[in-house]
């Protein structure tokens, strides 16, 4: 019998066999992890969030980008909830539950402007460097979200979803929560305005709301569409007027890129 050469170099046979038998297991690991998380999120329609976590994130993002159910003045204007921002965030936080992580949607186009296959639905495998960076990033985000929900509940003295809209606004703007609110705002933006393959922008509600056609390949735009005037007169009030009033400072902040974080 020929021994495995490694056995003589400090490896016991048991260890060699053990490693070998772990190989198929390792391949199953993402699914197993997902399964164990699914157990934790039992009864939840989400991969990462429990039902309660999802409800808290839904309530908080409704305050950040309110829709018709959240603010009478937003009648007819879908917000975070209508765009399914919670699904977007859950998809990001569980990106590595899939054999090909849901980080980079594919190409060259969806089927929104052509018949046939939606190529964006087939995600692109990250290379090692990207996978390593994102694994670490998402692990940190998962912790931040768990702690963030706990903190929101604590500030609401039990359950954030039971607090009034006014209380929720106060909590989200309070100094102890501000960093989490800022992260949540960033993800709300991504969930509303990114391609729907990432889990949000349900029914393209985010794009429709702002009159943006979104991904347009392989249709593109005609020369006429490039050049046509689009008259749209506004008389600025409220926040828009405020932005115009301090336009030079706003322009300076914009150009400097400091807001990119």
């Amino acid at each position, binding site marked *: 019998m020929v021994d495995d050469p490694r056995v003589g170099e400090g490896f016991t046979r048991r260890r060699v066999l053990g490693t070998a038998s772990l190989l198929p297991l390792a391949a199953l690991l993402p699914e197993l992890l997902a399964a164990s998380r699914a157990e934790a999120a039992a009864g939840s329609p989400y991969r990462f969030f429990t039902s309660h976590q999802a409800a808290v994130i839904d309530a908080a993002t409704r*305050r*950040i*980008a309110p829709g018709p159910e959240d*603010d009478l003045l937003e009648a007819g204007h879908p*917000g975070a909830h209508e765009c399914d921002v919670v699904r977007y965030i859950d998809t990001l936080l569980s990106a590595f539950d899939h054999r090909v992580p849901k980080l*980079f*949607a*594919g*190409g*060259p*186009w*969806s089927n929104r402007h052509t018949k046939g296959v939606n*190529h964006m639905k087939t995600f*692109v495998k990250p*290379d090692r*460097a*990207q996978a*390593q*960076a994102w694994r670490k990033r998402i692990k940190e985000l998962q912790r931040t979200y768990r702690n963030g929900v706990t903190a929101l509940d604590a500030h609401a003295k039990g359950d954030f979803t039971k607090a009034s809209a006014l209380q929720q606004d106060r909590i989200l*703007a309070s100094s102890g929560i501000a960093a989490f*609110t800022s992260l949540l*705002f*960033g993800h709300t*933006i*991504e969930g509303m*305005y*990114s*391609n729907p393959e*990432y889990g949000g922008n349900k029914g393209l509600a985010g794009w429709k*709301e*702002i*009159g943006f056609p979104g*991904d*347009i*390949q*392989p249709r*593109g*735009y005609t020369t006429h*569409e*490039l*050049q046509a005037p*689009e*008259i*749209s*007169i506004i008389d*600025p009030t*409220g*926040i*828009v007027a405020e*932005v*115009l009033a301090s*336009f030079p400072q706003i*322009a*300076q*902040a*914009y150009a*400097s890129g*400091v*807001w990119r*974080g």
Partner: protein
Amino acid sequence: MRKAVIAGSGAGASVMALTLAEAGWHVVLLEKGPNYFTGLGEHWPPKTVFSNDNLKANRCFEQPDPDAYPRTFRTSAGQKKGYYVGGVNELPVAVGGGTIHYGAAMPRFWDIDFKQHSMLGPVDGADVADWPFEYADLAPLYDHLERAIGVQGDMSAMPHDPVLKHAPRSRDYPMKSGPQKRASILVSGGARTLGLHPYPFPSAINSEPYNGRPQCNNCGFCNAYGCPTGARGSALDILHRALLTGRVELRPETMVHRVEMKGRRATGLRWVDQHGRRGVEHGDIVILAASGIESARLALMSRLPDPHHRIGKRLMFHYFTSGFGVFLDQRLHAYKSWGAETACMEDFADPDFLGARAFAKAQGLPYIRGGLCEMGGSEDVIPEAQFYQYILGAIQPQQPFGRAFKELMRTSLLRDRLMGIQMLGHDLPYLSNNVTLDPKVRDRHGFPVPRITYAPGKHENVAQEFYIPLITAVMLASGATAAAAVPANTPLMGAGGVIPATRHILGGMQMGTRANTSVVDEWGRMHHTDNVYVADGGVFATSGASNPTLTIMAVVLRMARRLAGTA
């Protein structure tokens, strides 16, 4: 068969690979990043997974992830601590390099860029120098490359003064100019009423089928996006032909980290791949073409001979001055476009622009130069929203979210009603702007990361002061209700300096005739070596005042033909 080993696969690397391979050389390209183009070297155009996807771009799909490949930044060598760790002016890390998502702007440099010291004179505190050749030497190479890659433009619409006077052309572009978009039409009109000379932006974007690639359909996901249809010309046009020779090997996901030396001779490039496998690719010559910053880093990590301490010095990024015009009477839909802007203007790059000499003299400078203005750009949706998040924090900190955010998105002052001008200002070379190895921070393989030390100098600040009112005037003349032009690199609100993000990476491996004041000779060979060449923007002796990709390719083509014996 002679063999060349190249670090990188972008603008410079591709031209070097094709020229050498056509002359019978064996060429191996080692590229740090992945290949997003299936079938390159087999069928054309290759299949791609790039798409109209703002989020994917923001997630560092093709950009180096700052977690895996960080850089560090400080504004001066005196800044001992607290400097920034993260992304600093990176180009894509992927097959094709910067050209896979550049705006494809293809202007030429001017005669005075190559002879800046002798034609414009020295500037106190700056290291102004001449290149070892002149515009006339590059002109036929520009012609050649405009055809090889496919550039649209309209010579008859280009002003003699200052453009054709300083960059004479013997023939028109291989493709006519495509249609102007709304925002570019308006801003060009405004500029003309002030006596300025905007013209259709020369761009490597197909206005008709060219090189086996389709006509552009104006999807607007252009600058900073990979092209989904293949309508954009790039290093891939060159790489594909190189691979078809059968003498070129392209190895993605393989990072070069050392030049192997034996005395003055390089024997090969040492690499590590994504799986941690390591090796050396041996060759008769080695070529660093990983961008100004990364080639300098590689030279420093390899401790290549540098008796006069010139490696990494004279980094130039261009200072960007941004103009914002807002329209309250119309939406400009700037996203419907080929390229980011369909018009440009070079008047402000001219040191003899009306009043510029007098303004410079009053400030104690011999001259000032602004740069090419990209006319009619805007912003993408996700960054627009992120900026509103930021300003809500500043304007209404008691409730920095809510309905006001949605109101801003619907009104879209800073995207759909925005008309942008971006001036790519001329950077003088300063020895104090440079790349060194960071003493502490390491990348994912454990190698020291590039530390960027950079700040605009007096010339850049004075030039912006002069041109800012003019940029504002152009926007108001175009019909904008509100307009503001601002420097992009002024420290703001306690930040230690704005992190450079111009994507124009020039200098660091300067070309020159004298071994004590430059890094490479006029043919790209490092002075103190027999066979180490540099073939990227690093070799630039001056920065010019416009988008540099075509000039990078032309300079490398000049070197490559000499190396191949086909000059």
